[in-house]
């Protein structure tokens, strides 16, 4: 089995799972541009300290941080989901 997995990895049929964004991460880039070519009025998430994102999302959810829309969005994500998203963005440039 191990050999099979190794073979599958070697021929490129298994992408390392770290490449795939966690649930919800891709949806943030509808407003927080992933492309560096895009001029956007909202802060970029890529390369941010994950603790900042987790803290901001918690404050948005609790209504402790001013927001036009993030309060409504943050309420749709659990702490665990936000942690995974924040960690993924931290690894991006």
């Amino acid at each position: 089995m191990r050999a099979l997995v190794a073979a599958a990895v070697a021929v490129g049929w298994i992408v390392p799972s770290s490449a795939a964004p966690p649930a919800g991460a891709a949806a943030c880039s509808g407003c927080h541009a992933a492309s560096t070519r895009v001029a956007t009025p909202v802060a970029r998430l890529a390369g941010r300290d994950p603790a900042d994102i987790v803290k901001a999302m918690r404050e948005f959810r609790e209504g402790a941080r001013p927001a036009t829309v993030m309060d409504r969005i943050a309420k749709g994500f659990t702490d665990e989901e936000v942690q995974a998203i924040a960690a993924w963005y931290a690894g991006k440039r």
Partner: protein
Amino acid sequence: MNRREFLNSALAASTAMFAPAVIGQAAPRVVVVGGGFAGASCARALRNAGPRIAVTLVEASATFTACPFSNAVIAGLRELSAQQFTYERLIADGISLVRATASAIDAQARQVTLADGTRLPYDRLVLAPGIDIRWDALPGYGESVAERMPHAWKAGEQTLLLRRQLESMEDGGLVVISAPANPFRCPPGPYERASLIAHYLKARKPRSKLIVLDAKDAFSKQRLFQNAWTELYAGLLEWIPLSKGGKVISVDAATNTLATDFGRHRAAVANVIPPQKAGRIAEAAGVADRSGWCPVDPASFESKLQPGIHVIGDAAIAGAMPKSAFAANAQAKVCAEAMAVLLNGGVPSAPKMINTCYSLVSPDYGISVAGVYRPADGQLTEVPGSGGVSPVDAPRATRALEAAMAEGWFRTITGEVFG
């Protein structure tokens, strides 16, 4: 991925190595039909999700004309050129662009046929054709009538036609918009359009009147729109719901008249937003059901009717997600990841998506509706307690901020998709 999922997908991948598509290690081929918000986003996301995948994008038009903010073009606040985008950056990303109309799909042979007879083989197909007008749904309406009574629900010439009609209308004229029953492209769109046309009339032709004839009794962001209408356009804009005789049952192009069960409205300018269905290639591919739209799996967007074909954007039945450019882009990214996993012999995990639709009630008065969605019981369902509309009692400064955010969102999304 946990250990078991990893082993499962490894096993599936090792079996997949003996499947026909994989013999000789040929790169898997994905064809995307339609280069709008859904299809262009998906083609691009596929280049990231599976760099080995050969991606072909089939698009009928050399230039894409975006609908979001096209209501501002109609009201003279913006030029159509600000809505137009080309595919150069997608080609630079390594996507093969085929400028053609796809005319048939053979789901068994896994081939797309183009209008000139060329066939494109695929391992997985994405259909993202947007909408088509149901020309037979409204007696008196049709393709040639749309030259007189524009729908302007696909941006381009139709947008400019409606704008010209408003510009040449005399002060004191009656403008009528007819809004269809659900589901249709951009649920708040007719009401944003009514608002911005009212804004134009108030400034330029203040003796005129605007009536919205609606086939529904409720609509998106209704309270926010109606409050703003009272504040900004009292006496100018009137909304007539289904229960008050709002449903248009026929139109007469010769007299520019819209008929309801309750009476007739003779318009100086008539904007008929007719019932819609998935772009016609969906029906030809056998992925549309009797509703005219396409049922899909909520995690992979694979058709429930034809395996190997994914449907995203306006054409898909996406449960609680509205037919918006925002949703089309979100679905495209999920679909691309899912296809990369499936082509690897794996099982896509449950996604989470966001939608946000901004509307302008006037150039500096923006409102929004947001939602977070995930699959539940085979449907895309809103996460309880999340989302909702802008606060009803927000000060004007917040409305101005949201109008700026709306503009920013358009720049971001079009930059992400085409830039």
